[in-house]
């Protein structure tokens, strides 16, 4: 709650910069239009015009806010296809698309983080994996996923996998890597004395993992999970491009295809809200876990 004022201040600053930028970036179009119409216009007209263009280079915040409101509340509550009148979420509303994306992102993140942690454990415990797998895990991430996402989906589709799973697979593909890198570091972070202690007990590898390496890796784990969940969202959205179904990704693409800047920004806001919510959720888990472990500062 102490953060309300700071957050509001920062948001106010951003809005201010945003408005100024909007005027600056949309001015050219206003001037060009005036020139085509053969009239002279001054800055005040430009400023006014810049905030109500239909296809601005940078839409003004209130345009985005209005569009966001229209595509969520208005669409659901008043729209013909909205949940109030049809009983199901409207395919024109961002709520619906956000939920579709969220389910794939969540599933992908779980798969990716789980796989990432397992891989990290393998890498830390097994020399062959450390030497053999790590370079390829790195290489795997340099493959431009967008290039092969359609292929993956084609292949998965042809073996009968469809629905949320193909998207989740790609989301997992992007999110496992930050988790691997962070966890390898984290699992190796206990200092010599801490590991020596377990050696004197002749603790097994699993015990060393459960009682030392894993607890010691917590700060790294959570930093990685936050990055991983954001990466998972990127993966889902990328995967949605070739699928053409519902989801924020398709929605962004469609908006972009029809040059509807305001709609893109509204969708972006929805995606960012989704990401922030998920990062926030991870942060919450982090706080609870660290407090439980007595590591909260």
């Amino acid at each position, binding site marked *: 709650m102490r953060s309300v004022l700071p957050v509001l201040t920062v948001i106010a600053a951003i809005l201010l910069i945003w408005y100024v930028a909007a005027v600056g970036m949309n001015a050219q179009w206003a001037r060009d239009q005036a020139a085509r119409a053969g009239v002279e216009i001054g800055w005040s007209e430009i400023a006014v015009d810049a905030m109500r263009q239909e296809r601005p280079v940078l839409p003004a915040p209130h345009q985005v806010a209005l569009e966001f409101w229209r595509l969520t509340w208005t669409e659901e509550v008043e729209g013909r296809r909205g949940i109030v009148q049809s009983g199901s979420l409207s395919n024109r509303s961002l709520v619906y698309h956000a939920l579709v994306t969220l389910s794939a992102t969540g599933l992908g993140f779980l798969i990716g983080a789980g796989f990432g942690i397992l891989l990290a454990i393998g890498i830390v415990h097994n020399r062959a994996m450390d030497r053999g797998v790590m370079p390829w895990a790195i290489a795997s991430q340099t493959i431009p996923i967008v290039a092969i996402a359609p292929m993956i989906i084609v292949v998965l589709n042809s073996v009968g996998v469809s629905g949320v799973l193909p998207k989740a697979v790609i989301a997992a593909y992007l999110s496992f890597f930050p988790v691997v890198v962070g966890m390898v570091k984290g699992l190796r972070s206990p200092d010599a004395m801490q590991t020596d202690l377990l050696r004197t007990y002749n603790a097994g590898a699993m015990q060393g993992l459960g009682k030392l390496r894993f607890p010691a890796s917590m700060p790294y784990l959570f930093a990685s999970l936050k990055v991983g969940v954001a990466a998972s969202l990127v993966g889902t959205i990328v995967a949605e491009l070739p699928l053409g179904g519902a989801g924020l990704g398709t929605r962004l693409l469609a908006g972009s295809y029809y040059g*509807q800047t305001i709609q893109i920004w509204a969708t972006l806001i929805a995606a960012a809200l989704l990401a922030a919510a998920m990062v926030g959720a991870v942060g919450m888990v982090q706080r609870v876990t660290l407090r439980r472990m007595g590591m909260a500062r």
Partner: protein
Amino acid sequence: EDVTLQLKWVTQAQFAGYYVALEKGFYDEEGLNVTIKPGGPDVAPVQVLMGGGADVMVDWMPSALAAREQGAPVVNIAQPFKSSGMMLTCLKETGVTGPEDFKGKTLGVWFFGNEYPFLSWMGTLGIPTTGGAEGVEVLKQGFNVDPLLQKQAACISTMTYNEYWQVIDAGIAEDDLVTFKYEDQGVATLEDGLYALEANLADPAFEEKMVKFVRASMKGWKYAEENPDEAAEIVLDNDETGAQTESHQKRMMGEVAKLTAGSNGALDVADYERTVATLLAGGSDPVISQAPEGAYTLAITDKALE
């Protein structure tokens, strides 16, 4: 009987005929259970076809023929689009009045298999596409018409039924634009046709299925031509993204109807020959290196139109 159709692009009135056939039950009448898969910027329909993800696809002939040369044996089984809707749209203020003014300008072009008509055209004009004062600077154009509005390019590729109207909607008057239709420049190539795999077509049962499919699809197209507004509504209902607007789709349907008007579904071999000739004439770097064999069949439409 199941049939999966892979579209070349997202759900829009460009594909109205198929959606109409689906919604109006024309496919049901033929005993077909049709699934329509929308495409997107990164979906190569041929790949989906080869991977077994679809039975039949909508594609442009240049890219289909190029794919055929690459070892993907696709065959044109029907050609609902008679004429080409592709054009180059320029801002008048950049001083472009004819193809001779292109030199030294920046032009926006779609890639991903859609660049062939443009390359052929430039080949015929003898303009190199590598930039410089004597050539044209080519930009890979994204999804929309921003490069023109932002004046990043002098001309961009547009379709009569889609992007052109986005430029207009953005507030640029028709008078401020100069357009070059590929049809008018004599370099038109065939657009949206239906293609299936050669190997599948060898199977009489599959062939029979395609006959039914083409027959129902054409029925859909003709219905759409006659009832453009209803067709646009049907498209809107099938658009899962919910991003299309009614006015734009209705107008698009009207424009698309002009392109499908001359076709009963059967491929006009003269059009085919013209397309092949254009593609072969691409100067130093033609799109296809030799005239293809067996790239089309009239058998399906012959039976369908009986």
